């Protein structure tokens, strides 16, 4: 299993010289298996570049949306494989209590927000409403569960043989308490014992105090969550648009000081993780 970061920024794409090392594109992660199965985790602005590369092939693509906030879907209209006639693409995402995934996505993929309608997409597009549970896509076993974040939001646990990655890009487990016990911690079942955890680490602890309930985590909480889940490595993700590279560096150093057992890295565009 190979994991590649195509967009690490949260909330808003942030291009410029001050974000060039960690990247300015919003959430998008590619997970590929040895059998050629490709998963695309979220479709923020990072999915545009990934789509250009994937358009060179014809294999089945599974796009797994964690939720439908703009920074996770804005790239959909620029995802080149969508416009390849006959290309089989599955898009998975959470419905709301009253609307299915198609109806929710149509709010973006229609005028006036976007000129192309979802019905104009030329590929063989299949939309799947996610309910908590597990399913297979190629070699991958995928599990989705609801996690704490405003609006319908899921995290993913993806296994390929013995390798496991957990993806919780927008997650505020501290809102449910900080006992970090398995039973009472949002997302624990997804992250438990994962080789790699990609987790929300948008704020410094001081910033978090001012933004409780916004749906994101401090780096300290991300590390505490990762340690409680006994993951091997945590990737701090969803960098705040107001944090330049230097700020992300400082947060990474602080997170490493806070960690007792987990390897901590910060997500940067282009970085890859080979989980074997």
């Amino acid at each position: 299993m190979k994991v590649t970061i195509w967009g690490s920024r949260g909330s808003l794409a942030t291009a410029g010289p001050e974000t060039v090392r960690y990247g300015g594109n919003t959430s998008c992660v590619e997970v590929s298996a040895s059998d050629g199965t490709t998963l695309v985790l979220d479709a923020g602005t990072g999915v545009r570049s990934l789509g250009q590369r994937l358009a060179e092939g014809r294999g089945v693509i599974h796009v797994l949306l964690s939720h439908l906030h703009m920074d996770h879907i804005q790239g959909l209209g620029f995802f080149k494989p969508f416009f390849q006639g006959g290309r089989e693409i599955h898009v998975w995402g959470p419905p709301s209590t009253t609307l299915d995934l198609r109806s929710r996505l149509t709010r973006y993929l229609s005028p006036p927000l976007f000129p192309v309608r979802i019905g104009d997409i030329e590929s063989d597009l299949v939309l799947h409403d996610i309910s908590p549970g597990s399913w297979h896509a190629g070699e991958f076993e995928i599990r989705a569960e609801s996690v704490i974040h405003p609006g319908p939001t899921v995290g993913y646990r993806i296994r390929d043989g013995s390798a496991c990655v957990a993806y919780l890009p927008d997650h505020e487990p501290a809102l449910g308490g900080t006992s970090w016990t398995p039973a009472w911690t949002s997302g624990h079942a997804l992250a438990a014992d994962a080789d790699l955890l990609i987790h929300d680490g948008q704020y410094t602890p001081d910033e978090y105090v001012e933004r409780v309930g916004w749906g994101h985590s401090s780096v300290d909480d991300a590390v505490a969550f990762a340690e409680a889940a006994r993951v091997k490595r945590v990737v701090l993700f969803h960098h705040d648009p107001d944090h330049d590279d230097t700020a992300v560096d400082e947060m990474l150093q602080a997170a490493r000081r806070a960690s007792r057992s987990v390897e901590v890295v910060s997500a940067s565009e282009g970085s890859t993780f080979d989980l074997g």
Partner: protein
Amino acid sequence: MERVAAEERPAGARRVEQRPIELILARQLAAALAVPVLLIDGRGDTLFFNEPAELIIARRFDEIDELSFEQRAATLAPRDEAGQPLPAEQLPGKVAMRERRPTHGLFHIHGYDGVLRAVEATAIPIESAGGHVLGAMVILWRRPEGEGPDGSHPGPG
């Protein structure tokens, strides 16, 4: 797409039993409230009760932790207004989950100290976005002894 069973865990690995986030958030809310609250799961087992509820149950939650429905029913031994044992299935939490609607009731329960207390309870079902009844929040409050359903007190004689 083929649905699969939850992944198997290797022998000896700890069992992860994470609660649904609706219950996690409900517990956190209950812990912050000044009104007595019990949180029960879909089976009726008590997952949590807050400090104000400890005064009615006469035991700290941390001393008990989670409590099965059968244990709770046996210990609290609820009785109706006439003093007769109240069938467990008629408790507001059970009715709220079964009928998927808020439910209100007046009855008596014993605390762990053996004292019978008159209480009112309003139970609200916790239903997930997927339509599954995950449990209920049961809000309790004590009634002064002898107070009727309308707040009236029996007169002398």
